[in-house]
């Protein structure tokens, strides 16, 4: 599913080099459930952004589903972000003007899928995720847990094969946090490759494979 070969990501801040990722080698098989932990600034988000094609490595190679995606142009990588990768963020990133359904349908909208088909898909997911009652609510009218549910629904509506979550429970109380991680795990059960970045040991230890980061390197992988 994912192969990273000698991936470096170097930022230069005020003439100073910051090695956010330092010689990362990583293989992820389809359907895996991985948690990534490590101290603040160790490069976890940077890795996730690279995997999500929101960022590019300074050097190294990234193979996704067998093809090299390191040097894709903007259009091609946008297409992959739309079709094969789902992103879940700590701060949800829902568009405040749009209702829950509209937010969920956003990837389909960008893909140019006609309204009827969008509605079909979103209705199914909304029911699965228990958001039916809230589907016409604006994000500000939803609780944190509900917002994250909407965000996850948006991430998976286009049936991606890879789901990347950067501290998905970081902004939630422990009960809704548990709720959300259970939902993600259920999606993983259905075959979705799941990578979760977290500070929460309890949540991190639920994953079958746990990767620890320190100063841009993988220091433990079990």
């Amino acid at each position, binding site marked *: 599913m994912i192969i990273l070969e000698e991936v470096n990501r170097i930022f230069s801040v005020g003439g100073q080099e910051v090695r956010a990722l330092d010689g990362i080698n990583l293989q992820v098989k389809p359907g895996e459930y991985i948690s990534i932990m490590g101290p603040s600034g160790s490069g976890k988000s940077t890795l996730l*952004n690279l995997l*999500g094609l*929101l*960022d590019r490595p300074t050097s190294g190679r990234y193979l996704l589903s067998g093809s090299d995606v390191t040097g894709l142009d*903007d*259009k091609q990588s*946008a*297409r992959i*972000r*739309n*079709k094969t990768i789902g*992103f879940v*963020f700590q*701060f949800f*990133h829902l*568009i*405040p*003007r*749009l209702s829950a359904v509209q937010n969920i349908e*956003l*990837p389909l*909208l*960008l*893909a*140019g899928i*006609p*309204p009827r088909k969008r509605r079909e898909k979103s209705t199914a997911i909304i029911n699965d995720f228990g958001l039916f009652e809230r589907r016409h609510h604006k994000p500000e009218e939803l609780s944190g847990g509900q917002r994250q549910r909407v965000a996850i629904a*948006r*991430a998976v509506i*286009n049936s991606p094969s890879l789901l990347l979550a950067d501290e998905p429970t970081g902004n939630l109380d422990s009960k809704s946090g548990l709720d959300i991680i259970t939902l993600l795990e259920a999606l993983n059960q259905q075959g979705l490759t799941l990578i979760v970045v977290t500070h929460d040991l309890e949540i991190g230890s639920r994953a079958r494979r746990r990767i620890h980061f320190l100063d841009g390197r993988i220091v433990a992988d079990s």
Partner: protein
Amino acid sequence: MRTADILSFAWISLAAGRVRSLLTLLAMSIGVAAVVVLTGVGEGARQYVVGQFSSLGTNLVIILPGRSETSSGSPSTFIGETPRDLTIGDAVALQRLPTVKLQAPVVAGESGIARKGLERRVPVLGTTASLLSIRHLHLAAGRFLPPGDPRQSRAVCVLGVKVRQELFGAQPAVGRLVRIGEHRCRVIGVLASEGRSLGLDTQEMVVVPVAFAQMLFDTEKLFRILIEGRGRAELDRLKQQVLALLTRRHHGERDVTIITQDSVLATFDRIFSMLTLTVAGIAGISLAVAGILIMNVMLVSISRRTSEIGLLKAVGASNSAVVRLIVTEALLLAGVGGLLGLGLGLIAGRLVEQIYPDLSAAPPLWAVGAALGTALLTGLLFSLLPARRAARLDPVLSLAKR
């Protein structure tokens, strides 16, 4: 993305910044309205002037004997050879040209007119029935000269209003006899009071058949021949045909001068068109201002929506898709503003027409097109910069903002 979806997304975004959007809309519509009204009034003024000329007879061509000094160049005039006279025969021959609608030979002179001891001197115009239509004259009473062979002299006359007044006072004039020079002459009509014609005050003159005038003044020559062409477009052809015919009839001598009002009219036309364009240009500046406002709105909205743009990219928007979204928002603002402005402008034009009923303030079609086009173009141009800025946003950094 489907066009309808882009539009509705843009619409939702604009609706979110309602006040800003409305203000920009207002600026844009004022700009467009200004263009529409000013060009409408300019065009109306042009048409008014052209119309005034037309009522004098735009298709009017005047032939005078002799080559005018300005256009002379033929040696014959230098030698001092007297030009051949224009004759009734020339006038009758001209009528056969296909481009000539009407022709009227004119003889002019001054003579005494008398009735029952009342006598005065008046300008006398000898002509034919066609003059009435060529010079757009109207009658206050009776009839104008009867149609018929212009060579036939009939002792009838049509009086100007003042002449009638002085000779007849309150009594009816039509059917009475007057004496012009040595000839008795029956009054058949009275001209309505009108302005001047051929440099003569129509109120003060007396119109008689051309052959009668020739007899009165003992002359064969015509003072002028007036021609009404069939159309403005054919005026050049008419001039050539007239010139060719008269040159042939005058044994190869180009000894007439042909005057049209077309050249004067064309000048006015040009001046007014220039004026209209100038005002349109000035009004166009307000469109540019509106464009800058649009740019400002878009810049503000982008900086407020940085994380949203990052999100759009994360869920699959390419840079060009982001550009399209932003530009569509601007175009929507500009387009709706433009349409509003058009409506406003048309209403204002109607108001102008209410105040000055003679003036048509309907904007020319090109101005409507240009105003809307410019509105959209400014929307496009001034949104490109914000849109490109949005497209260049680093999604990672934008998503880091909450």
